[in-house]
């Protein structure tokens, strides 16, 4: 088992230290969804947008280890190697999320 240790600082100190940084990230995420809504053409049902919506549900489910579970949500869970790499890049989400 890992030798887990809680942060030496208090919950209140964690909020004091990080709230504004994450307030900004929450607004950025909201603005991203708004930007997709306002833009023209296709894309609102893009798998990456749907993946972010699914991530938001994880954030609010009240269960622990949200970061690990969000990363798992965005991961490829197949187990066999692919036949050949057709690109070098990654998209950041799976199409089936």
């Amino acid at each position, binding site marked *: 088992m*890992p*030798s*887990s*240790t*809680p*942060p*030496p*600082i208090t919950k209140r100190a964690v909020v004091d*230290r*990080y709230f504004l940084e994450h307030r900004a990230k929450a607004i950025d995420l909201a603005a991203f969804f708004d930007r997709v809504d306002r833009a023209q053409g296709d894309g609102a049902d893009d798998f990456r947008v749907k993946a972010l919506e699914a991530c938001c549900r994880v954030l609010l489910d009240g269960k622990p*280890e949200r*970061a*690990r579970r969000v*990363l*798992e949500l*965005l*991961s*490829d*869970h*197949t*187990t066999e*190697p*692919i*036949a*050949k*790499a057709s*690109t*070098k*890049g*990654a*998209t*950041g*989400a*799976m199409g089936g999320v």
Partner: protein
Amino acid sequence: MYIDPHVHMVSRTTDDYQRMALAGCVAITEPAFWAGYDRSSPQGFFDYFRQLTDFEPKRAAQYGIRHHTWLCINPKEAEDPVFAKEVIKLIPQFLKCESVLGIGEIGLNKNSRNELEILDAHLTLAAEHNLLVLVHTPHLEDKLKGTKLIMDAIRNHARLDPSRVLIDHVEEHTVRHVLDRGFWAGMTLYPDTKCTPQRAVDIFEMHGTERLWINSAGDWGQSDPLAVPKTQIEMKARGHTLESVRKVSFDNPLQFLSQSGRFRIA
């Protein structure tokens, strides 16, 4: 004082060496990696290996930083196995260089069969020469699957001791898998992908500080060669002891890298 055990200084300016030295960097290790384009010939890698083993140590030494390196063909260029094996044939002649610590950063990128074949060829080379191994794990959605495939591939080489293999770029969903199988794990501190300094410290708090290190992996993309000292600051700000800060940013990399018999600090 700190060690940055994974940084691609061929892509950084001499000013970065100076800033790292001012922030307390005393030693670095530089794995071979992808240049942002595919080399057109194995000879391109020969010249790159000369740069890593000859030129960069001299550039780093101007600022009191000891430079070491790892050699390989990066998984991003492993989709052509014939080409990749020609490059691997070049590596043994560089192993006599005192600054070469092992084979790296090898691993997978898109988790393809060709990448696995070249990973296996690298692992064979490391086992034959009793070298340390530094492993790159894939990006984003490919990381979890790739990390598991890589660990299975290493397990097929009985001569490779997991305590002499570091699996890099772990995040919250892979760190436990890596540590539980006896490997060392590295956290890469990037602005947008991989770990932020805050998340790296979270991982220390959740998983302990044994067999874990931090690195900037500074390269030609969005990255920060001062990410390790910034993580030291984050740990201190949360109230972690100076001993803990030193352990993850100096003692742990020193412990792992010293297994090579070649690692030195300035």
